[in-house]
């Protein structure tokens, strides 16, 4: 059975400290910190029922980096459908999101590409929208092969404004500032944009972060993967047709 972990991105680039909350009885929590795609620290904790931990508590010897990820492994009984709370704090506020856990795959596991509909963007002169892509391939994989993803930018009226690619290294956090990406591609973000992001070869968790550029205030939510919109990805009869339809034209 695949081991499941809470996957915590870094928002150090936005001045935030990462943390998590688990509110169930546990025997043990094991937290791994990856920097530059490689395992950099492991910490263990035997918690009380409700535990809130922050990055400065579980790996105080390491300066938090923009590309790091942290994984939280829970050891105990009856944890199969558990949700975890991922939190970020600064001096001014705290944001949090409840999210599911991702499986840790064996070395050499063949991952399916991901499909993220980034349609909910707030792009104004004082507000940026970030797609936060955090991925975990495997602890023992040497992080050399890139996760290539295609980004298609449309306006709200469906016109394709630009198509580009990004590379999210294995076992890292990748922050995609949509307004900035649009401007780099000659697209005016304030008109309203919708992105289709496809590709990759890793286990991803995707979040969206809104940031007030004047005050640094943030908002966060996890993404809705295709399984929320259709049963096809998990239906063995429908899956292959769906994969062909959604990714058949993808060349990266």
């Amino acid at each position, binding site marked *: 059975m695949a081991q499941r972990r809470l996957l915590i991105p870094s928002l150090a680039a936005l001045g935030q400290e990462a943390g998590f*909350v688990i*509110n169930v009885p546990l025997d043990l929590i094991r937290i791994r910190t990856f920097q530059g795609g490689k395992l950099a620290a492991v910490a263990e904790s035997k918690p009380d029922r*409700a535990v*809130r931990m922050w990055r400065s508590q579980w790996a105080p010897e390491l300066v938090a980096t923009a590309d790091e990820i942290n994984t939280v492994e829970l050891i105990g009984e009856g944890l199969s459908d*558990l*949700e*975890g*709370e991922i939190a970020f*704090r600064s*001096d*001014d*506020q*705290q*944001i*949090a*999101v*409840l999210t599911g856990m991702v499986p840790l795959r064996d070395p050499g596991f063949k991952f399916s590409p991901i*499909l993220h*509909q980034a*349609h*909910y963007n*707030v792009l104004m002169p*004082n*507000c940026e929208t970030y797609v936060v892509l955090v991925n975990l391939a495997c602890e023992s994989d040497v992080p050399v092969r890139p996760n290539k993803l295609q980004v298609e930018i*449309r306006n*709200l*009226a*469906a016109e394709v404004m630009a198509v580009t690619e990004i590379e999210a290294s294995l076992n890292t956090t990748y922050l995609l500032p949509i307004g900035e990406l649009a401007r780099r591609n000659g697209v005016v973000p304030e008109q*309203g944009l*919708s992105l*289709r992001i496809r590709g990759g070869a890793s286990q991803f968790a995707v979040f*969206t972060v*809104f*940031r*007030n550029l*004047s*005050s640094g*205030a*943030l*908002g*966060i*939510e*996890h993404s*809705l993967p*295709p399984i*929320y*919109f*259709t*049963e*096809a990805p998990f*239906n063995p009869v*429908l899956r292959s*047709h*769906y994969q062909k*339809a*959604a990714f058949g*034209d993808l060349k990266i």
Partner: protein
Amino acid sequence: MTSLIPRALARAGRMVDAAHMKLKKKHPGVFGSPIRQNMVQLYRHDGDFDTVISIPHHLSFLAPDTNIDIIYGIKAFDRNGGLVAFRKHRVKHFETLQKPISELLGREPDEHGMFSVSCHYSSPSGIEFLGMTSPQFMTIFMPRSERGAPQITHSHKYMDQFPPLKSKFVRSSALVEGDRNLTGISYFIMNSSQVTANANLMLTGPSNSFAHAVKLNAHGAARIDFDARGEGPFTLACEWDRVVNHRKPIAFRRFSSGLVTAAHS
């Protein structure tokens, strides 16, 4: 005996629904596409936040080679459960419908309340391989304050199709609140059913606890403010007298900086 009849009715309702969906999957041309819908979420339209709803043309991403119009229906209720408006919007392939709720409804809604999103497709052809589909959406709470950031929640549970069973149960949230600068939490609770429901929100902290009982009209909503301050931890439990579908109050935390952040509980 009195509880057996509602249970039997609820079970029968679920069986009818399942049979209906099965027919739709098998014969979408006759019975229409199988769509699980009428998902609900909170709107705010008060002094602190307005609401923008963002709805993708989801068939574009899942079946890009098709070209089907989606007609979305947006229905909003006031906090007492009264219908504010129901408006339809036609969205074409790869378009995105993202507008303030007052524009989508064609009128100003209440200060807060519940809304739902439904849809139907201009054609059932070419999307059979998707099986059951669902029009999910994102709700963006736009701050009135210049310093605030937009807050966001995904679409939640479906509106109840049948009157929920009268049966007490408690849902405990996995969300644990607390921060050195926390000055309070407002919870917004919705009744996704077509009958009156009673709820009791209990926020338990390390040294004190809060409780607030609320009666929610059918499709009604309520705001409950708790004076929860500091690190906590504060945990929320909600006792319902009916097994309603939507059981996750939306939390808005206030901080001494003046900033407000939100999450579903």
